[in-house]
């Protein structure tokens, strides 16, 4: 066979191999999804969502876990979104090229690569020992907020960079100040892409387990954080309370981990059912992010 022919054959061989290898990852993903659904679908019921964890696998549910996840996500979002977007705006719109900016940028790049369990250790030393926040919703939210901050900063910067400078210049030409320009022109223009980054970061935070285990987030929580809003028949009718932020919590991934590490078979079924719920949330968020990114592929 001539060299040319051999090369041509190699070409089509690699094309097939490349496709097969690329699809391999997706195949494993499919196996994982099917395996989990087969294992856990029979436990998915209304009771599963409205029951507390229990010593009997058939009665155990994820009420405290999903409510806890909601609390933690709320806290994380309240902390990480303003801080992350603010930081991204500063670095992209205000920062001058100097040593300080360089130093901040290197820090962020590095923090993005720090293993999540280290954030848990940071939380243990800083929020639990030093600030005495105990194993509260606030401590968990703070840790996850710090964890996803680099992601939000980096995507915010990318989103702002994609906004053409002509928009800024037009705004300045009309007499707007820098902040007015950012607030009314640049941010709205980059909003879609920033939102995509936030959704992806939050979907990562929902699945995080290790950093919350490190601060000793208890696994058996048969109660919910205090309700933030309570109603009463007498004046003032509505009571607002922040007590919930200081209450202990559990979250879905921790509940799943707890069930996986039990020897009884029934708990493994509970774990699979919990995973179905967790995966549904994660995949929906990722799907929304992909859709948003696709929709926002604006050419200026």
């Amino acid at each position, binding site marked *: 066979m001539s060299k*040319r022919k051999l*090369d041509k054959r*190699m*070409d089509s061989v*690699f094309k097939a191999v*490349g*496709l097969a290898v*690329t699809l*391999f*990852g*997706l195949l*494993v*993903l499919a196996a*994982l999804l099917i*395996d*989990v659904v087969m*294992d856990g679908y029979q436990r998915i019921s209304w009771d599963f969502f409205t029951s507390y964890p229990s010593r009997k696998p058939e009665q155990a549910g994820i009420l405290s876990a999903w409510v806890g996840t909601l609390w933690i996500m709320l806290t994380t979002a309240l902390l990480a979104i303003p*801080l992350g977007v*603010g*930081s991204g705006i*500063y*670095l992209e719109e205000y920062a001058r090229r100097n040593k300080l900016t360089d*130093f*901040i940028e290197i820090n962020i790049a*590095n*923090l993005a*690569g*720090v*293993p999540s*369990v*280290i954030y*848990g*250790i940071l939380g*243990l*030393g*800083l929020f639990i*020992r030093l600030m005495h926040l105990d194993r509260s919703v606030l401590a968990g939210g703070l840790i996850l907020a710090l964890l996803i901050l*680099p992601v939000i900063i980096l995507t915010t910067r990318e989103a702002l960079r994609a906004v053409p400078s002509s928009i800024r210049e037009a705004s300045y030409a009309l007499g707007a*100040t*820098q*902040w007015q320009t950012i607030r009314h022109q640049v941010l709205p223009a980059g909003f879609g892409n920033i939102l995509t980054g936030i959704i992806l970061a939050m*979907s990562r935070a*929902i*699945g*995080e*387990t*290790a950093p919350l285990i*490190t601060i*000793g987030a208890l696994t058996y929580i048969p109660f919910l954080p205090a309700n933030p809003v309570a109603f009463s028949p007498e004046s003032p009718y509505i009571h607002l309370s922040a007590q919930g932020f200081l209450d202990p919590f559990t979250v879905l*991934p921790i509940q*799943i*981990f707890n069930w*996986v590490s039990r020897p009884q078979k029934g708990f*493994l079924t509970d*774990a699979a059912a919990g995973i179905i719920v*967790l*995966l549904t949330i*994660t995949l929906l968020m*990722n799907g929304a992010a*992909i859709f948003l990114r696709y929709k926002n592929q604006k050419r200026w």
Partner: protein
Amino acid sequence: MLKRNRIVKFKEMLIEKLLLCCSLLSVFTTAAIIYVLLSESVGFFKEVRIIDFLTDTQWTPLFTNKHFGILPLLCGTLLTTLIAIGVAVPVGLISAIYLSEYATVKMRHITKPLLEILAAVPTVVYGYFALLFVTPLLKKFIPGLSGFNALSAGLVMGIMIIPLVSSLSEDAMHAVPMGLREGAYALGSHKIQVAFKIVFPAALSGITAAVILAVSRAIGETMIVAIAAGQQPKFTLNPLVPIETITAYIVQISLGDTPHGTLEYQTIFVCGTTLFILTFALNVISFKLKRRFQEIYE
């Protein structure tokens, strides 16, 4: 008018300073991580000699006969990382070459986001999958396999980091200028020669950066190994028996109620420090390589 101007100016300055503070939070976080890790580790090394920590081949802080040698945990970490890299690098690189050089634009647009989902699946889910799907499956082929082992944890971890390798390497290959490819085609090259002899070497520093980042991610991965690899710190490279990684140990000891100030409690921070140094060094190398790569082509 003048007064109003001054107020506006003041407000602008205030906003800028406020946003600067947001950015400085990252510097503060890094400093806090280093402070927390070091302050507790210092106490540990007052009790345990560094030389014992680095050379003792036993790690038994929870037994009565206490040994504090990090080697078994390092060994476990190395083992799972090697297995994971053994999966993620070949698969990720071949996918990257395929997606960058062979696949149609439409194919790339569909496959890339789907592959990214692999990285989005929570790690606790992968742990479940490794323990209850991959291990039983492997047992059919390897009868001597333990219920907890480094092999399935490593394999599943490798699948998790495929997208990291493939998408970063693809970006690197994508950045190779078209002119290089066209030059090779003009000399009569086939696509496979262009892909392996032109694009791959030209993107090598970017690809290396991706692989190093993948190693760092594998070292720091926690839940898969905590669930599926076992909790027995062993100085072995046998992938079929239960082992323990640095991260899995941190989880194990966090689950118990270890009182503050004891040596056991401090081991969390010593392990954290070891982990931080390892991943930090790798991240810096990767960052530098990537920057150098960008300088060449931009």
